[in-house]
């Protein structure tokens, strides 16, 4: 009999709850979407107070969508960290209370590990192919840029990571410099489709091993625009698509160079992508190129499981449930970035 696990995510902006049965997802609800309409009121974007307002309605909706009741839940999994302490506290406290009231196991989940394990979420009635161990996972989001070596479900190691800004942040901040609204990543992607990726060249960082750096790119992009605007005040307007395309190419190239090097060094050809930046079409194309050029087997999860969501918390909870990795009521959230 497959366990039914309730997953809770509240590490940053979004409150989310999900129900998983075995590895098959039954529901995945993120506040700010339908909960907002059904329960009314304003959902602030960033707030532990908002998490407090959202968590009960979100769990109710997750149960309803999944067609299960509270008594069907075998265990509850929650994001313990990293994230904003106040926000994490809401999910942690809810999970503890729920576990205590229902007398079911409590499972703590590392948010970063969950991003990687999102690849193993199955949809009802259809099985998709999942990565084989060991695999490499490029985790890229607004707050993360990491290459993770995954030996087993719960055995993973960060072999490369950003030493300053995240890749998503590079997109967003360069967008801001061009006068695009925040978050500008998706907009750059859209504009890039009409531009020439080789129109401009931006300096790439030279840092050792598999680590990343995007702070220098942001600064050089800023100076590049400043110098050109001196000569042509309409420079950004006249070259917007080319700027976006060239910038996107540079960021994707930086990400892929280290990933290719890591794949070569480890001899691993199972290559996975995770995190919200996986929606970027340039990065997706680069993965397809990797498949063609290096014989990789590539894996890109459904977009709903790449941004912050509870489905990935629930699947991680499932793997921990199988290994009976439970925690007691004395568990506290953590804010630090560790895997």
């Amino acid at each position, binding site marked *: 009999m497959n366990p039914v696990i309730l997953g809770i995510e509240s590490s940053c902006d979004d409150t989310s709850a999900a129900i998983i049965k075995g590895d098959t997802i039954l529901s995945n609800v993120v506040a700010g979407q339908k909960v907002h309409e059904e329960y009314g009121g304003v959902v602030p974007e960033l707030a532990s107070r908002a998490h407090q307002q959202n968590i009960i309605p979100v769990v109710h909706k997750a149960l309803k969508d999944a067609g299960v009741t509270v008594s069907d839940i075998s265990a509850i999994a929650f994001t313990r960290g990293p994230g904003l302490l106040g926000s994490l506290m809401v999910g942690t406290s809810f999970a503890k209370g729920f576990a205590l009231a229902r007398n079911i196991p409590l499972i703590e989940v590392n948010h970063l590990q969950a991003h990687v394990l999102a690849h193993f979420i199955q949809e009802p009635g259809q099985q998709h192919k999942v990565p084989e161990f060991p695999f490499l996972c490029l985790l890229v989001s607004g707050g993360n840029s990491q290459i993770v070596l995954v030996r087993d479900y719960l055995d993973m190691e960060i072999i490369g990571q950003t030493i300053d800004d995240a890749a998503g*942040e590079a997109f967003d901040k360069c967008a801001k410099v061009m006068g695009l609204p925040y978050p500008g990543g998706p907009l750059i992607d859209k504009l890039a489709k009409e531009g020439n990726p080789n129109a401009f060249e931006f300096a790439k960082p030279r840092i050792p091993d598999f680590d990343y750096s995007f702070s220098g790119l942001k600064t050089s992009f800023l100076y590049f625009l400043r110098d050109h605007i001196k000569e042509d005040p309409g420079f950004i307007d006249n070259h917007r698509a080319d700027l976006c395309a060239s910038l996107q190419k540079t960021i994707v190239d930086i990400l892929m160079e280290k990933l290719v090097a890591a794949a070569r060094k480890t001899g691993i050809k199972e290559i996975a992508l995770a995190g919200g930046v996986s929606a970027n079409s340039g990065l997706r194309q680069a993965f397809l190129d990797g498949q063609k050029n290096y014989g990789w087997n590539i894996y890109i999860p459904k977009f709903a499981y790449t941004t912050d969501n509870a489905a990935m918390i629930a699947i991680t909870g499932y793997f921990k449930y199988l290994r009976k990795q439970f925690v007691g009521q004395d568990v506290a959230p953590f804010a630090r*970035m560790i895997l």
Partner: protein
Amino acid sequence: MEKTLIIHSEGDIDAIAREFLPVVKEKRIIAFHGNMGVGKTTFIKGLCRALGVVDPVTSPSFAIVNKYVTSDNQTVYHFDFYRLKNVSEVFDIGYEDYFFGDDICLIEWPEKIAEVLPDDRLDVWMTENADGSRSIKFSV
């Protein structure tokens, strides 16, 4: 008295950070003002090295706050309020717990939360000079 420290190149950062360190320890809450790309995060990385931080120091633009610990088990909070839209959001984060504790708080984009910055903070202004060097100005 106003003081100015000049960083001529990235190689200067560690020495300047060490020079600045006593002020950090005394004032505890440091607000870094300056435009995007001036080097706020880079200088804070240098300060964290000088403080003996053992965690990777990265931009908290997305996370809003990063927590680091030092080799002698001190906690350092690194804030970036860049993406806050409204000062009310800082109440929701529970900023009082950070600012009115005992730990060092290094703050980027403090302008976003000007109304709630503690009065006993140190304001630091970072600017880029014509030759590409950076000035760090503060009053002691």
